Each structure stands twice: as C-alpha cells, then as structure tokens.
C-alpha cells in the first residue's frame, strides 16, 4: 500500500515538530518503540505509531496519549534517521495545553510551575515534595527534617538557592515571562 502524506488539518508550526521530530523521514523501523520505557509500561503508547499518525495527519487522535512519554530521549538516541519522537511530543503538548486540551492535573501543574518561576525564578522548590510519605517509613524518618538540614548547609528553607535571585534580576525574569508565556501577565 502506498501512503501519501497529507497536510495536517491544523498545522502546528513548531521547530521541534517540523525539523527535529523528523516524522516525515520516519521509515517505521520501530527502534524507538523497542527502546521506549513508556511503550513498555503502557499498552496504548507506541512512539512509532505516533510518527505514523503524524505522517497521516491524525493529530487529534494523539491528544489522550501525549502525556505518557517520560522524556528520556532513548528514541532519539536510537533512531537511524536522527528523528526525535520526544521532541515532537513536546511540541504537541505545548499545542494541547494552549488549546485547553491538556488534562486538568497538567493545567494545575503548569500554574504551580509558572508561579514558582514568577516568585523565585525556579521551576521546582523544596515545598513541592508534598508526597514524601509515599516513600516509606524509613525514608520519611530520614528525610522529614531535611528543611532543617538545608539551613545547616546555608540554604534557605523554602528556596532552591543558597542565595535567592536578587529582586532586580527577578524583575527581568518576570518581564520575560510576561512577554513569552501565552496568556500574558499572571493574575493570581
């Protein structure tokens, strides 16, 4: 059967999809799927099939599985055509989030990370380890006092830094976020 590449109905103009993911060059060899830990974990996730769907212009069908990828880039390192499914996934995720099609949990996380960047110039902060209890009683007992140990080492309890980013630098960071993050200024 001969496959003709269709123009996608809603084009996403993104260098990571167009030039880096290389879906147009994909020859369906399956090396990406063979090395993908997400494909090993989830029955409905196959990077090779993602490339095929991109070739066929079936982008909408990818919406629900986009968040499976663990961003390890084993696919990129192993692809004989220098393609990167992981990079393409990022472009699709950005488009899904911008069009409101991301899961609510992802939208909430986006808000947390954006706030962290606004407040402290960091994406992840010590306070975001809210799930310490999941790691078992010994880990909890060893690590529950880590905020005190941070202080002993000369770090701020709540900041990722020993020296927080100075206010004038935070002003530059916030201005860049306002200009480049869809939705403009933060209102919360």
């Amino acid at each position, binding site marked *: 059967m001969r496959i003709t590449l269709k123009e996608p109905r809603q084009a996403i103009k*993104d*260098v990571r999809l167009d030039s880096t993911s290389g879906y147009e060059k994909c020859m369906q060899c399956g090396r990406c799927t063979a090395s993908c*830990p*997400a494909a*090993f*974990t989830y029955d409905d996730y196959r990077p090779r099939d993602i490339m095929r769907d991109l070739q066929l212009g079936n982008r909408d069908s990818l919406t629900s599985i986009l*968040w499976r990828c*663990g*961003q*390890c*880039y*084993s696919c*990129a*390192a192993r692809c004989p055509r220098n393609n*990167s499914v992981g990079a393409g996934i*990022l472009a699709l*995720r*950005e488009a899904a*989030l*911008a069009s409101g099609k*991301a899961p609510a*949990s*992802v939208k909430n*996380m986006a808000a947390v*990370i954006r706030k962290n*960047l606004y407040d402290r*110039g*960091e*994406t*992840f*902060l*010590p306070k*975001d380890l809210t*799930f310490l209890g*999941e*790691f*078992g009683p*010994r*880990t909890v007992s*060893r*690590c529950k006092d*880590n905020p005190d*140990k941070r202080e002993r*080492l000369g*770090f701020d309890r709540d900041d990722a*830094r*020993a*020296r927080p*980013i*100075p206010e004038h*630098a935070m002003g*530059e*960071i916030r*201005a*860049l*976020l306002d*200009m*480049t*993050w*869809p939705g403009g200024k933060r209102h919360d």
Partner: protein
Amino acid sequence: MISAAIPQDQYYLFKSCIMCSMYPGIEKSIRFVLDRIGAGYTDDPEHSSCTGFGYHAGVVPLRANLALNARNFSLASGRSIVCTCPTSYGNLKECKEILSKDSDQAEYVAGAMEKIGRKMDLSPSIHHISDVFLAKLDDITAKALYRFDGISAVTHHGCHYSKIFYRDVASGTHEKPEVLDDIAKALGCSVADYGERSLCCGMGFHYTMLDREYPRSILKRKFASIQEASPDVIITQCPGCTFNLDYYQETVSPLDIPVLYFSELVALALGADPYDIGLDMHAVPVEPLLEKLGIGGGRQ
C-alpha cells in the same frame, strides 16, 4: 577519553532546581572539589532556572524557555556554562541550537531581551560538571586523601546528558557512556556492568508531580538489574536520577544500596566531611558505605 573540548577555567556554575531543592549538599560538594583543585568559577545568584523540569513536563512553552535561557547566556557572557544537571545541559544546548538556527525564534527572543535591556549573546559554551571533573582527573587524584579500592560501583548516566546530544558524550558512547566510570575508577572503585544500564530512572518530569506509578514501574526493572551486580554504591550524574534511585528504593525494591552523585564521592575522596555536604539528607542510609570507605559517619 574526552571527545569534547572542555575549558580548563572560568566556569559559570549553573545551579539546578532539583539539586538545590532535594540535595543542596551536592552543590556544596561540587564547590568543595572545584575549590580544592583550584578551578576558577563564578557563582552568580542572578541566573534563573533553565526551566528544563517544567519544559520537559510539557508546561513551560518553548518561547519562555528560549527567552529565559537567552538571558542566562547573556549573564554568562565570556565564560563557559557548567551545568550541574543533565537536563540543564541538554536544554541549554537545545536553546542555543534553536536560537542559532531558527531566525524567527531568534528575532522574537532578541526583541524580548532588548525590552529588558539585554543583548543576545550565544557565545558561552555549555558543559556538564562531570565533563569538567573528567578533564581534571589528574588534579583530583593528586589531591585525594582517600582511595576507594575494594569498593564496587554501578553508574547511571542521565538520559539528558547521553541521549539528546548523544554525539557529545565525553567518554564512551551514547549506548554506554563512561564519564562516571572513569571518575570512579580513578578513585580506586571497580565498576560493574548491569543489563539495564541505559534504562531511564523514570523521572518523566510531570510524573514526578502527577503520577508516580510510571517511575515505580521503570525502577522495578532498573533495581532488579542493579541487584544482580550487587554494588556497594550507585553513582549518578543527575540530581533527578539521584532522587529517583534514592527515594524510591525503600518501597519499590528494598536494596539498601546508597546512591551518591559523583561529586559527593569525589568530595569525600578529597576529604570533605560527609555532614558538611549533607549526606544525611539521602533517603538510603549512607553511613554503612562511609564506614566501608574508611571515612566514618560524620558528625550526626
């Protein structure tokens, strides 16, 4: 063997959100080593996160990532950026590549930079701190107070170090990076192989905050493979991998194998007090390993 040209001095030390949130002692161990071997570095409080954690979670837009890192490049101007996290390394390299090749993005970001009074400057080269340690192994071994002969290690390199810009791996290949192996061997450790050496730690970025079944399912395989090699220590290159391999051990597969970021091991060899580099913040107890290394448990 170092395939990439690693600068010898004038490093711009690039801090990491996961490293400094979970293991601030890693940063202290890196500075301890650089100070001991007399390598000059800048510890600039003004740089922001590379945003890599949020970028790979799929929630930081490419443009914000490019703009914030264009600002970071301009801060580092004239110096070589040395990343403490492989995600920063891969992400900064990707940002530099996109800004060098994609004129639309470059024009937009240059305009945003101008509005905050900065000029785009893509001159800094980007390296990972393990490459620097590799390039400085002679200085490190010359200053070492301890040798770790008789200690068996396995290594876990970061995916964002060896699988994105996979041609730039400084020792070994992308299939079998050996940067950490070379560092550990120089200190006297033996390094054992294991089948799932190149399997990711399962960090997955958004999985860290949203669904931890993914890391658990991957780490089950990884730990089973490490168990066969039964090492004294797991040596890591990435703060995120350190967290995953360390914190998940108790519930996924109780192995009790301490996990050390490579700079912690090097700092110990150079005489750092384990307490001063925060080894008591690790989830798997490191004290039995310290005894084996002949260092003792530090001031608890």
